[in-house]
C-alpha cells in the first residue's frame, strides 16, 4: 500500500495489482483469502472483491435498458389532464415548450436541464466511462473519476419529476371539472432514473485506474 502510494500519485499501482483487496465500506486493505469462497472484510464484514463482479457487463445492460426507456419517457405523455371533458396529453418536452412559449423561460430551462438533459447526460457519461475502461484508456483518469462521482451524486435528484407528477396527480382531482392522471411516460422516466442510478452503482470506479499504467488482467 505504502509502496503503491509512494510510487506515484497517478496511482500506477492499485491494490488489486498488489494482490490486495480494499473494502468498499471501511477502506481496509486485506489480503485475499486463498480459497475460492466469497471473502469478507475482517473489520466490517463487507463483501470483498477485487473489482465488483461483472461490473462492466451489468452497467452496460442497465445503461442500454435506460437508453431504451429514455425514448418512450420523452415521447409518451407524463400527465393527462382533463379539463371539462377535454383531455390533454403533456409530454416532458411539450411542458418545456409550453413553459417557454408562455414566457417563463428560466423554468423551461430548469425542466429541460433536469428532466431531459441530465438523464441523457448520465447515460452518455456512463457509456463513455464504460467505453474508456473497456478500451483501457489511461487519459483523463481524474476527470473520469470526478464525472463518475457527479453521476452517482446527481442520480437521486432526477426523481424530482416523478415526485412532481405524483403530487400533481394526487392534488388535482377536481373531477369532473378537472382531473389529472399520470401518463405512461412517467413510468419510463422513472425507469430511466432508477436504471441509471443502478448503473452508476454497479460501475466500479476503480476500473478507471486499473488501466492507468500497465495492462491489467481484465476483470470485466
Amino acid at each position: 500500500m505504502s509502496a503503491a502510494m509512494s510510487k506515484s500519485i497517478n496511482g500506477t499501482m492499485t491494490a488489486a495489482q498488489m494482490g490486495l483487496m480494499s473494502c468498499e465500506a471501511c477502506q481496509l486493505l486485506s489480503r485475499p483469502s486463498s480459497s475460492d469462497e466469497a471473502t469478507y472484510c475482517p473489520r466490517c464484514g463487507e463483501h470483498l472483491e477485487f473489482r465488483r463482479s461483472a461490473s462492466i457487463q451489468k452497467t452496460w445492460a442497465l445503461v442500454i435498458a435506460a437508453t431504451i426507456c429514455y425514448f418512450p419517457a420523452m415521447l409518451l405523455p407524463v400527465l393527462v389532464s382533463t379539463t371539462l371533458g377535454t383531455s390533454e396529453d403533456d409530454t416532458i418536452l411539450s411542458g418545456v415548450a409550453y413553459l417557454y412559449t408562455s414566457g417563463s423561460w428560466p423554468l423551461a430551462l430548469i425542466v429541460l436541464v433536469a428532466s431531459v438533459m441530465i438523464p441523457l447526460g448520465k447515460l452518455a457519461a456512463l457509456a463513455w466511462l464504460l467505453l474508456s475502461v473497456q478500451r483501457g484508456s489511461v487519459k483523463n483518469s481524474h476527470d473520469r473519476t470526478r464525472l463518475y462521482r457527479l453521476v452517482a451524486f446527481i442520480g437521486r435528484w432526477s426523481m424530482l419529476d416523478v415526485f412532481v407528477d405524483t403530487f400533481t396527480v394526487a392534488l388535482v382531482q377536481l373531477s369532473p371539472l378537472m382531473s389529472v392522471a399520470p401518463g405512461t411516460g412517467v413510468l419510463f422516466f422513472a425507469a430511466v432514473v432508477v436504471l441509471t442510478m443502478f448503473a452508476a452503482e454497479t460501475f466500479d470506479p476503480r476500473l478507471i485506474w486499473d488501466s492507468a499504467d500497465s495492462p491489467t488482467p481484465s476483470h470485466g
Partner: protein
Amino acid sequence: MADEPLLDSLPQAVVVRKRRMRFSVIWLIPILAALVAVGIAVQRIRSQGPVITIEFKSASGIEAGKTFIKYKDVRIGLVSAVELSEDYSKVLVKAKIAKHSAGLMVADAKFWVVEPRISLSGVSGLSTLLSGNYIGFQAGKSAEEQLSFRGLDEPPTIKDQPGRRFILKARELGSLGVGDPVYYRGLQVGQVAATNLQPDGRALDITVFIDAPYDKYVTAETRFWNASGVDVTVGADGVNVRTESLASLLAGGVAFDSPDYLTLTGPAAENHAYPIYRNRVVAMKQPDPIERRFVLYFNESVRGLSVGAPVTLYGLRVGEVTAVGLHYEPSTKTFRPRVLITFFPDMLIARMNARQQVDNAKSLQGLDAAARIKLLRQMVDERGLRAQLKTGSYLTGELYVAFEYVPNAPKVKIDWTMDPMELPVVPGGFANIEAKLSSILTKVDNMPLNAIGSEVKDVLSSLNQTLKDADVLVKRLDAKLVPDLAKTLEDMRAAIGSADRVLKNTDSTLFGKDSPAPQDLRDTLQEVTRAARSVRVLVDYLERHPEILIRGKTEEKP
C-alpha cells in the same frame, strides 16, 4: 509444523480466474425494457388511423392537439396540426383519425367547426363554450376513400335524416338564412339547407330540406313563398297581417302549400326547382291564363292607386291594375292619368254558380275578337258599364277600380279598334263627393247673401213693431175681458156642484149594495181584462213570429 517446508515445497494451485463472460441475468432488464417499449410503439402504430387534411377558411378555435373531431359526440380524431395553405388563403387542418373510424373517411363525408351559435331559431353548440370548439363530422354514403376534405363554413343543418331536398330559385335572399324553418300549414317540416349564388350571379338557389313524412306534400304544383317576418299588405282590400309563426316573424322562413284549385300530381322528384314567391297571396294566386287588357283615362287624381290594386265588378274582384301612368293629349295639351288594367275572364266565371260557369265558360272564352267587342259595346253603350275610382280604405287612401252599370251615364264615343281598348270612366269615390261638395259650395257662393241680410234686417224691424202692437192688444184684453171671465167661472163652479150631487145619487142607485149593476159591471170588466190579455199574448207572438200571418201557426218544437 515439521510438514511445513514440505508443504511449502508443494506447488501452489494456480487460481485461474474464470472469465466470467457468461450471460448475466442483468441483461434481462434491457431486454424487458426493449420489449415493453417496442410493444407500446407497435400498439401506437397499430392504433393509429389515417391522417386527414381538412381545408377551412379560418381556424377559429381549432388548436393542434386539443381540438377533436367528433361524430355523434364520439371522438374519432384529434387535430394534429393547423397550418396555412401554400398560398396563405386557406387553413389546412391535419387530424389523426382513430383506427376504428378510418372507414368513415369517404369522399362525401363532411366536416365543420362546431362553435356556439345563437340564432333566433335556436342555440347550438353551447357545450363548446366550456370545452372549446371541435370539428363536427357527418358520415358520407360514398364508398370511395378520401383523406383530404373541404370543411363546411356552416354546420350542415340536415343531419342523417330521411327527407328530400328541393331547390328554390330566388332573386334575392331577403331575410332567409341557412337553418331557417320551412313551414307547411304552420307546422315546421323542414329547414333551409343551403343558399348558393348561381354561377352567373343573377339568382340564388335556396336548397330546402323537407323531413321525411312531409316531403310527400311537395308536388310539382306546390308553391313556396317567403314567410319571413310579418307580411303586412296594405292594399285596397284593407290591411292584411299574416305570419307563419313567432319564430319566422323574427327569423324568417319558407312556407309552402299547394293551391286548392289545382289537381296534385303526387310527390315531386328530389331537387325539383321552384320559384319562391314574395308572399302567400302572390304564391297562391291562380294563374290567369286568359287576360284582357284595357286602358282607362281618368280625369281625377289617381293618387292611392297602385299596381296590383283590384279591379272589381260590383265589388267582386275580376282583375287588377297593371300600370298607372300619364297620357298626353296633344290636341288639348293636357295630361290625364292613364290606368292600364287587366281583366281576367276566368275570375268572372269563377264567381258564377256551377251551371252558369259551364254554360258561360265556353261562350265567354270562346268568343272571337269581333264578338267580344260587340258584347262589350252593348254593355258600355246600352247598359252603361263604366269604370270609376273608389276608395278601398279611407285610412290609407288606397284606391281601386270599380266597374258598375251606371244607368244614366252620359254617352261616350270609343274607338273600339284600339289595343288595349279604352273603357269609359265616370268620376267616382272621393272625386265624386268632391265634385258634389264643390258644386254645393259654388251655389252657396253664388247666393246674394248681402241682400238677404238687409232684407232680414227689415223683416226684423217690422216684426218688432208687430210685437209692440200685440202688447197693446193684450193689455186691453186684460182690462176688459178678465172681470167677465171671473164671473163666468163662478157660475161654472155652481153648475159643477149641482152635477156632483146628481152623480152621487146615481152612484148609490146604480152601485149600491143591493143593486145588480156592480156585479154585472165587475164581470164585464173581468171579461175585458181577459180579452186584453189574450190580445197582448197574440201581439207578442205575432211580434216574434210575424210569418204566421202568412203561413199559419206551425207546431212549435221544444
